[in-house]
């Protein structure tokens, strides 16, 4: 099965994660009309066919110039990202300062609510492109592809 999707575009990936993660009815936007229970899916990207195996993948992405990391865990099913989790871990003092500051300061005044607890039709904001996130996603894509078939040298 071929899925019309651009796995090459980082921005697309972020956007689609945002959509599927939130799992708000009406927001859920699968990559394609994908018949329900596939164990794997084949993505045709620029002439290359890549197969992604179902499963849960974790990868760490680096962002910025100093070593600061985020860890992204993604569950794939039938070629769709059905869940994603991001944890941040900073090792560089500036980032640590920022992460801690936001971790402690934000909830005191503004309280984030999980999107699926809030009935919204769309989202305004910054699911733009955290570069570390995209780096992690790229690794996950590789892992999923090599666990799939086609590409040869399975581990």
């Amino acid at each position, binding site marked *: 099965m071929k899925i019309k999707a*651009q796995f090459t*575009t980082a*921005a*697309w990936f*972020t*956007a*689609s994660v*945002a959509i599927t*993660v*939130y799992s708000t*009815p*009406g927001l859920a*936007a699968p990559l394609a009309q994908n018949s329900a229970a596939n164990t794997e899916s084949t993505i045709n990207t620029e002439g290359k066919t890549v197969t992604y195996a179902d499963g849960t993948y974790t990868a760490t992405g680096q*962002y*910025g*110039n*100093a070593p*600061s990391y*985020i860890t992204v865990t993604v569950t794939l099913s039938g070629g769709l990202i059905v869940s*994603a989790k*991001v944890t*941040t871990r*900073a090792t*560089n003092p*500036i*980032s640590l*300062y*920022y*992460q801690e*500051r*936001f971790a402690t*300061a*934000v*909830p*005191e*005044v*503004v*309280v*984030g*609510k*999980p*999107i699926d607890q*809030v*009935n*919204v*039709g*769309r*989202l*305004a*904001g*910054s*699911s*733009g*492109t*955290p*570069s*570390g*996130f995209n780096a992690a996603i790229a690794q996950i894509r590789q892992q999923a592809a090599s666990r799939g078939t086609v590409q040869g040298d399975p581990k």
Partner: protein
Amino acid sequence: MGTASTKAMTFKFEAIGTHWEIDTDAPLDMRLRASILVRVREFDRIYSRFRQDSLVSSVAGADEGGCFDFPEDAPPLFDLYDQLHALTNGAVDPLVGRTLELLGYDRAYSLKPATDDVQRYAHAQRPVWSKDVIRHGARLRTRRPLVIDVGAAGKGHLVDIVTCLLKRAGFRQFVVDGGGDLRNTGESSLRIGLEHPFSPGQVIGVANLRDRALCASAVNRRAWGHGLHHVLDARTGTPVRDVVASWVVADSALLADGLATALFFVPAQRLAEVFNFTYVRMYSNGRAEMSPTFAGEIFTRSKHETNLAS
């Protein structure tokens, strides 16, 4: 609420580095889809500084400067930049981006934050929109290579342009969502989550948008969590640290987008003297403020404490 039911079709595509979705109550035919994609590509070919064949790349490559004719969509965009440049005392400046890159800004800043040398050099060399570009309508004159970055308002402008195409094709109720900057056309109201700038999957509030545009700006959009991000103060070349996110509702997405950036630099009152808009602004200390007439709410501990206690 209620908008989900009116949403019949979603047309999705990738453009100018982000994911677009257009919700309409009736299908878009192939011709309209094609004309949207052509129009969007045309915009990219003019304004993308990541494309070598774009008009802004020609401006950037002109060693001696030159005279450049932009298309007719340019004056509204550049007019807004003129206004925001003046109102923010130069903080909003389409010429900010590349100068800093060329200076090795990222590296210098992240390793040894804001050394005097870097700042002095940046200050001495940087071009300024109000001085280095002479503009008459859509015609720009330059005297040296300049990198124009319309990142602060260009996406909003394109959301308006696409909205216009749909209106002309007879659509009355639709949403154009350009990667989180969006415009809802028609009488039905749309509830929109305000994405938490640092917690993926969370929202800090909700806006009710009816026949207007809502655009957001946040420091995490590029290179987040690091004190290094894309919202730069053109005057100092350093990232803004106080405001971390802003959301603006205005009649056009161009205006909403531009104001969302400008709110990082100046008090809302200053902008409100000139423009009609409502906003939410979040600071690095976790406070958020909302203009009194903002149609929506922000979630604060006092209001939602009980819900969240677990």
